């Protein structure tokens, strides 16, 4: 399974995708005795929109969080844009290792289920905090960049509002702008619409779909099957800490090969017109 998972599956790689930008090798994660990731190998290609589906507890969120070391892998390695960091749980507090992890995180943006905007800062300040303090972008430039991305997510007029004054959907769109402002090589979304009221899901998915069509490299953990079908280059089904099946959305969602994928999708797809 691992060998096939490492390469683009079955069909030839679509022409618009570039070189691999994220390479995950032999990734294992234990929480105590709980074996959550069981040897994941995965390449994500430049400009690829990859959606991870699977039932809760299958390890998809952990895979995402291990990719930027918010959860520290027990074994294996992560490479993003040429920087490879191997799991080293015994020496994870060392200063040089923390710095490598930080460099890795600069390459990967993250959008969380609960937004996690900084409540004591305005939307704009949320967006310029990391660019000015971490990337040392001059304040004026950082503001220009932030305004461009806030406009992109349709919230330029909310630039001076604090998060408490924004709806859930607006918060998540600011969070997306904040991540974009660091100009990451890959943008990761951890169930970005799961905490939203149903009527606010659409505005967030719209922004994400635009990003996908513009060629933003992204990894999305989602339960929105319809969205996956529209926006994904590749869909990946996880179960029990491993990748069970992957391929273009038409294939995985309409004609799944694995019994477990079929069973999982049946619940989602029956009520929806094909």
């Amino acid at each position, binding site marked *: 399974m691992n060998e096939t998972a490492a390469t683009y599956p079955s069909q030839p790689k679509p022409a618009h995708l570039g070189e691999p930008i994220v390479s995950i090798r032999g990734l294992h994660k234990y929480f105590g005795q709980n074996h959550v990731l069981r040897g994941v190998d995965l390449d994500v290609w430049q400009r690829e929109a990859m959606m991870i589906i699977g039932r809760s507890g299958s390890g998809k969120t952990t895979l995402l969080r291990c990719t*930027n070391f*918010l959860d520290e892998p027990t074994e294996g390695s992560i490479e993003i844009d040429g920087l490879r960091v191997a799991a080293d749980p015994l020496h994870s*507090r060392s200063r040089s290792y*923390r710095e490598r992890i*930080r*460099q890795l*995180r*600069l390459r*990967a*943006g*993250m959008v*969380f289920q*609960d937004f*996690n*905007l*900084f*409540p*004591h800062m305005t939307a704009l300040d949320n967006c310029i*905090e*990391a660019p000015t*303090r*971490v990337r040392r972008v001059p304040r004026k430039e950082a503001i220009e960049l932030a305004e461009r991305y806030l406009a992109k997510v349709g919230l330029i007029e909310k630039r001076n509002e*604090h*998060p*408490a*004054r924004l709806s859930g959907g607006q918060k998540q769109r600011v969070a997306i702008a*904040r*991540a974009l402002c*660091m100009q990451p090589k890959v943008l990761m979304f951890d169930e970005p619409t799961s905490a939203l009221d149903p009527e606010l899901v659409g505005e967030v998915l719209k922004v994400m779909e635009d990003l996908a069509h513009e060629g933003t490299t992204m990894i999305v953990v989602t339960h929105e099957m319809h969205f996956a079908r529209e926006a994904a280059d590749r869909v990946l089904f996880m179960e029990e800490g491993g990748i069970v099946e992957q391929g273009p959305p038409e294939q995985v969602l309409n004609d799944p090969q694995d019994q477990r994928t079929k069973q999982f999708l049946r619940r989602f797809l029956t009520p929806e017109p094909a």
Partner: protein
Amino acid sequence: MSVIEAAPRPILAEMASAQRRARASFRAQFVLVWAGLLGLIALLLLVTDNVDVPWIDEWAGFILGGAGITILVCVASIIFATLLAILGALGRLSKVPVIYSLASFYVSLVRGTPLLVQIFFVYFALPQVGIIIDPIPAGIIALSFNYGAYMTEIFRAGIQAVPRGQREAAEALGLPERLVMRRVVLPQATRIVIPAIGNEFIAMIKDSALVSTIGVQEVLWRAGVAGRPTLHTLQAFMIAALIYWVLTIVFSYFQERLERRMARGDR
């Protein structure tokens, strides 16, 4: 539907005015009870033949003059105590054994000994090893260390009350640990602990009376000096108590306003 439409408007106005009357009555009774109790105390004073108006004229200003020193000592102490508390809290949350141990030792030692002993130690004991400190700085040092230890626990709880997602979001953006703490966690923790710091400050106004024992010429010290020689102690200490009381009422008022403003703020 027709029931809602038919709801008689007049009753709404009547309910509103009834509510207004109830509120006004509550307030009136509050003022009445307080005025009554204060009057009772004044009456008892008169009955015991302990009101010496010329004495009050002469000394009340002198005792009141100590309020400035009380406030000075408290403001200086709460500032230093806050700084100590932030360091203490970071220490108590540190994963470095030596730092954690140092912070724990500080908190344990200070919380395990009486404030009065700490004041005496700084002012009367340190001179034996050649460290001589004037009364006011000595009082500020003792109060700062004492309150710093108690407030360490407040700040620790405040830092831990900041949701974990905040730290993760900052880390995911590549902020180094130092900035995660300074820019994201501490500002939010401060918001959480400000009401508690207000309470500590009010408690400190009263505890600062203890520094009268080392000759800091604050409210209580002055009351003693004014009252004892001519046996006007009842009036002197009542004036002192009144001053502390008014000070705490005034600061409670400001604290309440600050809290309300922060609650309204941007969370």
